[in-house]
């Protein structure tokens, strides 16, 4: 693994003890419990069950693990909030909605290493004294549903799930719940609504899910990757874990790389690996050895960056400093030939399609941006359109119910900021 220095702060620790999250996945029977156990699976669970629930939460807190779903919220802190609420029952929800375009990092875990997730969920269930867990799986992963359900059944048969987990007299039931094509259901409160069989629209916060989530009961929602980190934290201990990757947001990280690179795919690298290293060292550089034009570093709703920003370490601390975000770590790479106006238009079309329709600026404003982009993109843009576009985006920013609409506005603003000339060229 290559070297590299964080743009600010301490050096990123590049050592990962082999693969953690993607361990075992080359094995054709990786989803099978026997193989998982053979490579040390469910050991962390046994270890965790010897600890007090509060000790596990402390351990996760000390590990410095931050949520891998996009927002980077400290996981241990979230757990502590939910643990402090005395309402019963409590729920653990795994966010496997993975809807952010460009993101496909959870898929290998779901399809090839399901027991890692299941083990992580059982441990969190124990830590939070929650007896029920649901994996909210996006509808677009039909195979993963079967795989997860098989894996859950296996875990059940082995006594890791059910009325008496591992013979410890605790109860944990886990189910897969299939979404049905709504990006917004990745947002945690919309996910809860959807799980409750409703239209997946975000809820007013507070109350937060940790206090009033699924069925108004304390609920933890974590991303697949976040939960998949838990067994490893228990296994090696918080201190060792905190040594991996970026100091403020340690751990291994899955980067899903797509677009114009030679070897796209999911890479497990230490948190804080630079974009350059990801693109050039791991993905083999730009397809056809063309020039790099731009990168969207963390999924489509994170701000696009020009080529000169690729020395920035990919983590929750450094990306914002460089004007973007780590998001889900979904790196989309664009070579010099790409029509970025079209990319921007397509991205906004996505947001328009996915707006839940609850709040005015997102429901109406994003459609308006799409309309303007559509005409610019197909060459019938008008004078003043770029300013109008930016103004509309500014009118959305900061006023939407949830981050979806804000994200759409941010996309437009950053495309226009870094690549305004491409837009201007299209308006005659």
């Amino acid at each position, binding site marked *: 693994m290559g070297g590299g220095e964080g743009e600010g702060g301490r050096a990123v620790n590049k050592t990962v003890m082999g693969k953690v999250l993607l361990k075992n996945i080359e094995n054709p029977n990786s989803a099978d419990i026997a193989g998982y156990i053979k490579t040390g699976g469910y050991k962390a669970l046994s270890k965790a069950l010897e600890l007090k629930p509060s000790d596990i939460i402390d351990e996760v807190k000390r590990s410095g693990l931050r949520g891998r779903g996009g927002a980077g919220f400290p996981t241990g802190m979230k757990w502590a909030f939910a643990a402090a609420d005395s309402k019963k029952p409590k729920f653990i929800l795994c966010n496997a909605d993975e809807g952010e375009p460009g993101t496909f990092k959870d898929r290998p875990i779901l399809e090839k290493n399901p027991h890692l997730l299941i083990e992580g969920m059982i441990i969190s269930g124990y830590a939070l004294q929650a007896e029920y867990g649901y994996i909210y799986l996006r509808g677009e992963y039909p195979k993963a549903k079967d795989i997860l359900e098989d894996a859950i059944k296996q875990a059940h048969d082995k006594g890791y799930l059910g009325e008496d987990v591992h013979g410890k007299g605790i109860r944990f039931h886990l189910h897969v719940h299939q979404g049905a094509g709504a990006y917004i259901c990745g947002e945690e409160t919309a996910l809860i609504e959807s799980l409750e069989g409703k239209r997946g629209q975000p809820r007013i916060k507070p109350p937060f899910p940790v206090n009033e989530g699924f069925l108004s009961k304390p609920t933890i929602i974590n991303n697949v990757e976040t939960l998949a980190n838990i067994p490893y934290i228990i296994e090696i201990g918080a201190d060792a874990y905190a040594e991996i990757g970026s100091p403020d947001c340690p751990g291994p990280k899955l980067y899903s790389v797509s677009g114009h690179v030679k070897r796209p795919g999911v890479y497990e690298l230490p948190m804080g690996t630079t974009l350059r290293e990801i693109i050039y060292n791991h993905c083999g550089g730009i397809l056809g050895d063309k020039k790099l034009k731009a990168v969207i570093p963390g999924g489509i709703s994170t701000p696009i960056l020009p080529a000169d920003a690729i020395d920035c370490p990919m983590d929750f601390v450094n990306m914002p400093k460089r004007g973007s975000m780590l998001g889900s770590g979904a790196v989309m790479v664009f070579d010099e030939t790409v029509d970025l106006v079209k990319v921007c238009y397509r991205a906004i079309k996505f947001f328009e399609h996915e707006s839940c329709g609850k709040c005015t600026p997102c429901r109406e404003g994003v459609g308006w941006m799409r309309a303007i982009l559509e005409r610019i993109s197909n060459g019938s843009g008008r004078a003043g359109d770029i300013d109008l576009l930016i103004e509309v985006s500014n009118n959305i920013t900061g*006023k939407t119910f949830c981050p979806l609409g804000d994200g759409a506005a941010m996309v437009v603003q950053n495309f226009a900021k870094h690549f305004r000339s491409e837009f201007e060229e299209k308006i005659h």
Partner: protein
Amino acid sequence: MITVTINRKKINLEKPVTILKAAGMAGIEIPTLCHYEMLEAYGGCRLCLVEIEKMPRLQTSCTQYVTDGMVVWTETERVVEARKAMLEFLLINHALDCPYCDKAGECELQDVVAKYGPTTGRFAEGKRRHPESFDDPIIVRNMERCISCTRCVRMCSKVQGACAISMVNRSSKTFVEPFSGGRYDCEYCGNCLTVCPVGAIMSRMHRHAYRPWLIEKEIDTVCSFCGVGCSMVLQARGNSIVRAVPGESAGSNKGLLCNRGRFGYDYVGSSGRLDSPMIKRDGKFQRASWSEAFIYIADRLKKIKDENGGGSIAGIASGRCTNEDGYVFQKFMRAVLGSNNIDSVASFGYAQAQRFFEGIFGQGVTANPMRGISNSDGVFVVGDDPTAVNPVLGLQIRAASHKGVPVVAAGYMPGLRMFATSRLIPRPFTETALLSALVTELRNVKGISGKGPFERVIKDIPSVSLHEAEDACGIPSEDIRSAVDALSHMTNPSIVIGRDILQKPEGQTNLLLLAALISLLNSRIYLLSELPNEQGLVDMGCLPDMLPGGRHLAVESFRRRYEEFFGVDIPSSPGMGIMEMIEAAHAKKIKALYVMGEDLVYNMPDSAYVKAALSKLDFLVVHDIFMTETAGLADVVIPSLSWAEKEGSYTNLERKMQLVRKAVEGKGMEDWRAVAEIGKLLGFDMDYKSSGDIMAEIAKVSPLHKDITYEDMAGGECLWPYKGEPLRHGMSLEGIEMPDKDSLLKRPEKDRIYIGIDKPLFHFENLSRNSAALSSIAPEPYVNIGKALADKLSLAGGDLADITTGTGSLKLSVQVDPDVPESSIRVPDNFGDKGAYTIMSWKINSAIKAPVADATGVAIEKIKRAAEEAAV
């Protein structure tokens, strides 16, 4: 204590509220579109954004709660710009058809746009297209105007509980739809019309006939479609009502109405209204002048009285008439004609139930504010479906259910299907078994001291086990058990009782069992009341044995008081009840009947019998606003005024007295005025100038209504016991007969099908058929049949069936409802010669003098439909 500063104003608060609310308290207005006081916060429109110091983002004031020390600005440049931006967004897909839209002038969007702009639109692309939907007879949906505030959907699902509409699709393709996409399959409460801030959901009734600024009068009054007495505003232009909207504050309805109240008013302007007195000569009605008619009536009554005595004359009042009408009428009957034969359909159960419970628990036990239902920790409903009989009271039960309060529904109650936690639907005529099992179980769980006299009665009620009850009423014992569990955990429940439970051969026993339950559960009582002034009839002494103010005629001192006041003697023995009058007419024991506003033929059981009885009278006077079947039999018909055309008061089922006000002029005369004119001709001093004069007299003579005034009522707080003196008397257990166990466990005969009365939400007695609006919602009579029976007879929804009883026969279209108890069918009593009363035979219950359904069977046969026949 929380202190928050809004626009430099300091506001102190006891507990945290939203910024919007806090601002409202301080008189600072923040514009909103998706917010609606009665509904939970939504935060969707983003118009109420405000700036809060130390918070980088603008916040929606409808969702953000204040914290101590918070500093808020509601009209900064940034805020105003944001609002303008939100409005510009909203107008993207909002049809700008204000000149054409009926909402213009009271459109919330129009108002805020006028205030915050934008004045020009920059959105150059095509708007969403969505043709206006006229698929429904009542509601027009224009989704090009919808702003997705979801107020209608939240109202429909969370408050009304009808869940008939929903937002469909997502993104800017979102709009509101009933399930069918066209016609509504809903309760037509129209509360969605109230809440829609724009012209997206409108009533067809005033389409293009209504502009808010052309409204000339807005009259605060009370609805006349049932005993809830919702406050409403009648908006009139010229001499017609253009719209009825709910009153916001005074009534217990707090801004809600049901379909009847909102849309039923159109009968007032119907062309079928009577406009002149009529005298029947040689079998034909002839128009007559008022004085001609009055003199004719006075002469005939005088003759009959002189020849046969006052006891040969009887009077029937109506629960649609005001207290003033009722008071003058009973005075006329007692003082002028010397007869205590005065009664009304309030004696079909309401009056008896109230009297029975008052005897045990004291006068006024049923006078409970309706909101108490949603505030109680349990609800037990029995008898009729409250959501149909008294829809807005029904909403209280649904609200309780929304709060997670257990609701036990005993009986067929389709309106509580989604809300009741226990649903116990007994076979016909086996309610007694169910109730006695409940009493038995609760008596065990709760334990009774057996000390008080009524407790001793409860103790003596024969025990009925769950299995015995199951055997008799067909409800699985575990269902009864779980209802008992729910009931036994209630500490301050409400019990809601419909009159159907009394109209059974075991009606008297059922009352006793209910009283036992009330006592065991320590619950508040609510009696469903089908008529707007049923309670008023009782309070005004329109009963054969009661004087105004709930004073027993038989008690000498009470009678004396009225005799002194009226200046004449009042016969001391009770008169005939309404059912007895009909029998007496049949037997020619009474000669004359004076009917003040009741269609006896169709609002009483066994229409043919009633008709025959009325035809045998020497003299029949009928007041009405339409030429009803009963009026058609009269010798003289006096056109009266509808509730919207006169002044007076109603007393609702909470025993709240409320003002009825005149919105438009009618061609008839107030009932009290007509009666008083006749009284005067008969030499009695009845010189009232206005309804106020009558109320002043009531306030003087009725101890209960002492000193009461219209001002008291106008405030909406004229509550029992007013300023008067309710009777305080010891518990009276008189007349309680202890049933034996066998009578508790009666069961229907095998293979027999029984008929019951269905109470449709959309109709009110037989009057509502004169409302074009209500008739368009529910034009057809029907028969409701349970699934098993329908299958057995191979009947499907829409089939035509022949229903035959010993009394008559009807052809009705079939509706299949799995909830209808086995071996029974239900027919509504609202469709005149196609109504249930035409085929039901009844008996008078000797104890309560109320009609009880005769448990005779019905034969049903499938009829081939015309189309099928043609095909054969």
